[in-house]
């Protein structure tokens, strides 16, 4: 089920009302209800893959209990159970997401050395959200193994934690330590949380439907016919994708966090205005924060982090970025995207001393540099193949302005998209300056200001949104 769908518009109020009116007081029933709601939410996409979530969750539930039961005197058995969890979880992920990619890569590699194999790829459907819930479930076993937390004996709570519908298919990737205990809390209605949650939902939908999906029309056409998109059209395609990806994904996180708040749950912030970051390392502390911290906690630090000398640190960082690229998609383009970002962080941050404080001018320059670097890497992220990415770079320029409106957006829509982007960036700068105070000030404002904004956003979605039968409105990160 998509957040920007009619199904969700019916599902959410229904689940909300049942949750607060019928199931609030009995914890077991409430969590069971959330589990059923979450499975229903996922089942709308394809109910067959519910079994995969269930099996994955049951495995980790049992393995974590077993690991915990084993005494410290049996480190090998503990470790072998942890490795079993890794193998099983990554095995599922590997089969559904990477099977064809790896086999194809091996066949190509052998062909390069003159050994030909005949191979026909399997028609495997990639289960939506598998990368997200696998990492979430896996982090639980790892935390129990590293004794960062006690395992839960409450099966329903654990199943509900893995499948919690607001963040099931595209994050934020929550840690068991933070989210699981919330299933044991007795929830009382929090007006402030609910209204801020609702505002986040509407704001997220506005970003997604009005801006990101409109940019998508142009991007799909420029990247879909790279040979025709010459000069400024391609440049705008690349620029627009930089913003589409951010707005699309951050919108999903906003809606997820907002939805969770309506049910009294607190999710982790996933984006903190990354395009205002003045360094590459800062960028990764603001972009897809829950994935970055996952890689940091479960890959980078166990590999030694920065504790084993500068050269090992570089290797560790590159491994993390390589894996991050691979996590995003089964394609070498994603790997290249990851490595490029790793190299930016390793090379440009220290060389240009981006992490050191400086003047406003330096910070603006650094922020522009970070966005430019990110934009460059995203060409590999968006293009289907390496050759396509090279074609995109070859086509970049400032000429052929007359072709600008041949790619799905007429001049009025194109101009609107540009203004909307500028407005969004101004909002980001203001939000960066005032932080939480901005929201407090908004909620303290007169009713006509608040309702005026709610109405403007909602009617904006209805009247200015890029939706309809001809639009593909799924979220980009669903494919991961």
């Amino acid at each position, binding site marked *: 089920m998509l957040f920007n*769908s*009619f*199904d969700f518009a*019916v599902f959410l109020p229904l689940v909300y*009302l049942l949750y*607060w009116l019928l199931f609030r007081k009995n914890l077991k029933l409430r969590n069971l209800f959330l589990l059923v709601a979450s499975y229903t939410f996922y089942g709308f996409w394809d109910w067959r893959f519910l079994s995969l979530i269930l099996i994955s969750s049951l495995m980790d539930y049992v393995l974590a209990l077993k690991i915990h039961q084993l005494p410290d005197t049996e480190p090998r058995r503990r470790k072998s159970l942890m490795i079993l969890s890794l193998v099983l979880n990554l095995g599922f992920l590997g089969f559904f997401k990477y099977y064809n990619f790896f086999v194809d890569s091996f066949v190509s590699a052998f062909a390069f050395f003159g050994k030909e194999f005949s191979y026909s790829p399997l028609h495997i459907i990639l289960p939506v959200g598998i990368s997200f819930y696998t990492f979430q479930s896996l982090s639980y076993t790892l935390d129990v193994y590293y004794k960062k937390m006690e395992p839960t004996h409450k099966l329903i709570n654990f199943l509900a934690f893995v499948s919690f519908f607001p963040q099931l298919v595209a994050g934020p990737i929550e840690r068991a330590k933070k989210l699981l205990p919330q299933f044991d809390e007795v929830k*009382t*209605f929090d*007006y402030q949380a*609910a*209204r801020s949650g*609702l505002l986040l939902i509407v704001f997220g939908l506005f970003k997604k439907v009005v801006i990101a999906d409109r940019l998508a029309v142009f991007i799909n056409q420029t990247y879909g016919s790279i040979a025709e998109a010459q000069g400024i059209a391609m440049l705008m395609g690349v620029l627009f994708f930089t913003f589409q990806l951010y707005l699309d994904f951050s919108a999903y996180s906003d809606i997820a966090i907002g939805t969770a708040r309506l049910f009294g749950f607190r999710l982790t912030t996933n984006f903190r205005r990354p395009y205002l970051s003045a360094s590459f390392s800062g960028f990764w502390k603001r972009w897809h924060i829950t994935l970055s911290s996952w890689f940091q906690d479960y890959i980078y630090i166990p590999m030694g982090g920065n504790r084993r000398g500068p050269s090992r640190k570089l290797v560790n960082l590159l491994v993390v970025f390589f894996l991050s690229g691979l996590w995003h998609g089964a394609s070498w383009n994603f790997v290249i995207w990851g490595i490029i970002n790793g190299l930016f962080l390793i090379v440009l941050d220290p060389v240009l001393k981006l992490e050191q404080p400086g003047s406003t001018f330096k910070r603006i320059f650094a922020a522009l540099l970070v966005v430019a670097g990110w934009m460059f890497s995203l060409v590999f992220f968006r293009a289907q193949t390496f050759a396509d990415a090279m074609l995109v770079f070859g086509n970049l320029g400032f000429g052929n302005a007359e072709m600008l409106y041949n790619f799905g957006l*007429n001049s*009025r*829509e194109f101009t*609107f998209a540009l203004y909307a982007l500028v407005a969004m960036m101004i909002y980001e700068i203001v939000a960066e300056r005032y932080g939480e105070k901005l929201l407090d000030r908004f909620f303290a404002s007169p009713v006509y200001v608040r*309702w005026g904004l*709610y*109405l403007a956003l*909602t*009617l904006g979605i*209805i*009247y*200015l*949104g*890029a939706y*309809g*039968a*001809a639009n593909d409105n799924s979220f980009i990160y669903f494919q991961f």
Partner: protein
Amino acid sequence: MAKSLKNTTVKPVPPAIEKEKRHRDFVLKLVLFSALVAGVVYYTDAKGYFNPDYTNDHTRRKWNAYYEFTKRNPVDVVMVGNSHLYTGVSPEHLSNALGASCFILASPGTTMTDTYYSLKEAIKVRKPRLAVVETFTLNDYDSHELKPGTLSEQFKSFSARKDVVEKMLSTPVLFASDHYAAAWSNTIRNHSFIFTDTAQIRRNIALSKIKQRPEQGLYLGRYIRFTSGIEDSTLLKYERPGFKAYEYSKHMPSKEALKFLRKAIELCDANDVELVLLTLPMYHRHVHDYGQFKKVVQEAAGPGVSWLDLQMPYDTAAFTAESFENTVSENQHMTYQGSLVAAYKLARYITTRHPGVVPDRSGDLAWKQLFYGSDGYFENHSPEKDGVSTVLMSQAEPGAGLRVKELILVPQQGAKRLLMKLEPGAGPHTVTVELEMKAGNERAVVPLDLRRATAISPVGHQLLVSDYLDPRVEVTKVVRIINN
């Protein structure tokens, strides 16, 4: 009062009750806000600011005409289907051939599901005696999987119907959930006009200030676009080795289509409406594997169903290349000429297979007032003293072995035409009529050839027709009739 208020001790509200109250407030505000948003959308919908350009929406026009017509007149035959129907049958000729009122309520590219709901609404508005369901709607796609173009047509069909309850019940059947709002609201469906067609919004704003007039005149749902038949150069394409223009085996009816065919049959049974399935032909060399399709439909419809299949067996003498649109693309429609052939074949089928079901209203004044002079009227009925048509001969035996029921000069298609009606049976294929004609001050005797009408085949007589004549000519006398 003030004193009693002063003495009242205010108990603190327990936090739980306070939270409950806040929750109730929150939900109430949400409901109020949703109503406000819905109100704004409803307003722009009601005003029609986001309406599409209805001037070319013949589906809406058909339904509006049907609602208007049925307010005052009975309807005898309702025909439902897709573009093959409204291009392939002339409802005026069918009506005049039967002496009845026949309506086409077809929309382009539609599914059997939509066809069923159209039939349901048509019956609910005014029950016909007989329903015709065209079988090309039994296509291979389901209503939930429609592509934007076809989906847009289904939106049009849905939006043209007016029964709110039926529409609510049929919404989840006809559309995927993400299209519910678009099906009900032009604002939702066409909101992109803000960027793509502001001129249409301006037109709609202007139109919203004018009271719309109901459909005027007789409109029975015909929408024929094709006038010239398949040309020789196009016919040559069928000669290409292995060329197959339309393969029925690739477009077998979906489960949903067959289900709604059965529902349509049940609907007619339940309402005591006779049902005829109608298969309109495509050019015989155009179609392949039709037998497979027919078998599946036959099994689904059951043995007793009445089915006029004009594709198989195919009447090569009646449906010539001239009867079909000049194309070898999959969706080959019929031409005007073809639609006349089909209308008369259908009329004959109804009168022979369903005798007495459709009443002959040609003697009713009300019917005559509606249909007099419409396409196909004079071919089937006698003209009256109307100052426009001229009866040159009636129930006469002018020699040459001919028994003329009627020889008339009638206005047609902006011209005039000479029609000769003969008793049914074997008659001549051509006759020559020598007429004394007057145009201005000039008089002359002119021989006119009348040929047996191939397309027009009235039930009660044989018809011979002339070419179209200058509308200014007047016939003063029939000089001689020669049987060729």
